[in-house]
C-alpha cells in the first residue's frame, strides 16, 4: 500500500490521525504537547467554573421539571383539587359517561364527560374519536381544566386494551369475534 517514497516523507499526521490544519500545512510545527504551565490558578478556575456550571444546570433542570410535570389524576382527584388544578397539565383517566357524547363531524368537535364513581368532568376535544371510543370505555385525556370547569384536551387515548399479557403467550386468533367488533364499534 505505502510506497517507500511516501514513507520517507515525515508528515506528522501520518500515523497520528486527526491532526490540526496547521500541522498539516507546516510539517515543522511544534509538537502540540507543549502547553505552558498555568497549573495552580488554572485548576482553581476550572474547579470554580465546574461548580458554577453544575449548580446552574441543576437549578435549570429542577425548575424545568417542576414546570413540565404532567399529573395522572382521576376525575375525583381533579375535582378535589378545585382551583389549584386550573391550567395544570393533567392526564385524566376515567370512564366516558353514559349519554354524554356529542360529536359534530363537520367541525371535528367532540364533547363528552369523563367520570369515576365520585365525579364527572366535561371534556372538549377537537379531534376525531378513535376507533374504539364509545360510552363506558376507559379513556385517558391529556390537557388542562379551565376556570369554566371544562377540560380541554389535546390528546385522547382509549385505554381498554388487554395489555397485561405475559411474553409469548397468544391465544389462537379469534377472527370471527374480532371482525365483528371491528364492525360493531365504528363510531
Amino acid at each position, binding site marked *: 500500500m505505502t510506497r517507500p517514497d511516501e514513507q520517507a516523507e515525515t508528515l506528522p499526521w501520518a500515523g497520528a490521525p486527526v491532526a490540526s490544519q496547521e500541522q498539516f500545512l507546516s510539517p515543522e510545527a511544534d509538537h502540540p504537547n507543549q502547553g505552558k504551565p498555568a497549573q495552580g490558578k488554572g485548576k482553581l478556575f476550572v474547579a470554580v467554573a465546574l461548580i458554577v456550571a453544575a449548580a446552574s444546570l441543576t437549578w435549570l433542570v429542577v425548575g424545568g421539571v417542576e414546570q413540565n410535570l404532567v399529573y395522572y389524576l382521576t376525575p375525583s382527584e381533579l375535582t378535589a383539587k378545585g382551583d389549584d388544578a386550573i391550567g395544570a397539565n393533567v392526564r385524566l383517566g376515567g370512564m366516558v359517561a353514559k349519554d354524554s357524547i356529542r360529536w359534530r363531524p363537520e367541525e371535528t368537535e367532540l364533547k363528552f364527560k369523563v367520570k369515576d*364513581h365520585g365525579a364527572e368532568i366535561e371534556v372538549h376535544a377537537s379531534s376525531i374519536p378513535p376507533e374504539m371510543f364509545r360510552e363506558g370505555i*376507559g379513556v385517558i385525556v391529556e390537557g388542562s381544566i379551565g376556570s369554566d370547569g371544562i377540560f380541554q384536551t389535546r390528546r385522547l387515548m382509549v385505554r381498554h386494551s388487554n395489555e397485561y399479557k*405475559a411474553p409469548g*403467550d397468544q391465544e389462537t386468533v379469534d377472527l370471527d369475534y374480532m371482525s365483528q367488533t371491528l364492525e360493531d364499534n365504528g363510531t
Partner: protein
Amino acid sequence: MNVAQTPKPAISWPALLVGLGLTLPLLGILLSGLFHDPHDLGNPLEDETAPRFTLPRLDGQGTLSLEQLRGKPTIINFWATWCQSCPLEHPVLEQAAREFGDQVQFVGIAYEDKSERLSAWLQRANRGRPSAYPTLIDVGGKVAVAYGVYGVPETYFVDAQGTVKHKKTGPFLPSADPTADGRLELRRILGEML
C-alpha cells in the same frame, strides 16, 4: 509512558463523594420503582362500597347478585374469551376456588362476550369438569364500567360487608419464581382478607 507506581495511597474524596452522591440516589429511585406498577392507575373504589349487580348466570340457573353473596368475602374476576392471558390465569383461580371455596366466593364476570363462546371456552379450559365457581354475563359491559375495569383480566376483592379491599390489574400467572408467582400472590391476598 511513566507508570505511576508512586506509593501515594491517595483517595480522591471529591470523586468518591460525587460518584456516590450520584449513584446511590439513582439506585434508590430505581429500587423504589420496583414496588410500583406504572400501568396501575390506582383504584378509586378502594375501601368504597362495591357497585351492586344482578347478572344472568352462564349456566342458565337464573341470576346472581352481589347481595346474595354478602357474609362471605367475594372475589370478582373480569375476563373474556378473547383475552390472551386468561387461559393461563384460569387454572390458578380454579384451584384457589376449590381450595378456599367454603370460606370465600369466587365469581367470574365475562366481559364483552357471548354465552356460546364462553361455554365452549370453559368446557375446554376445565377439560370437561364442572367449573368451581359461577360465571356471569355482563350484558353491555355495565358492571365492568361501574367497577372501572380498564382491561381484562382484572380481579376485585370484596369483603363480607361489601367493601372493595383490593384490586389486581392483570392476571395471576403461575411462575417458578416465588417473587412473581401469581398463585402465591393470590394466596397472600386471600390470607389478608380472611
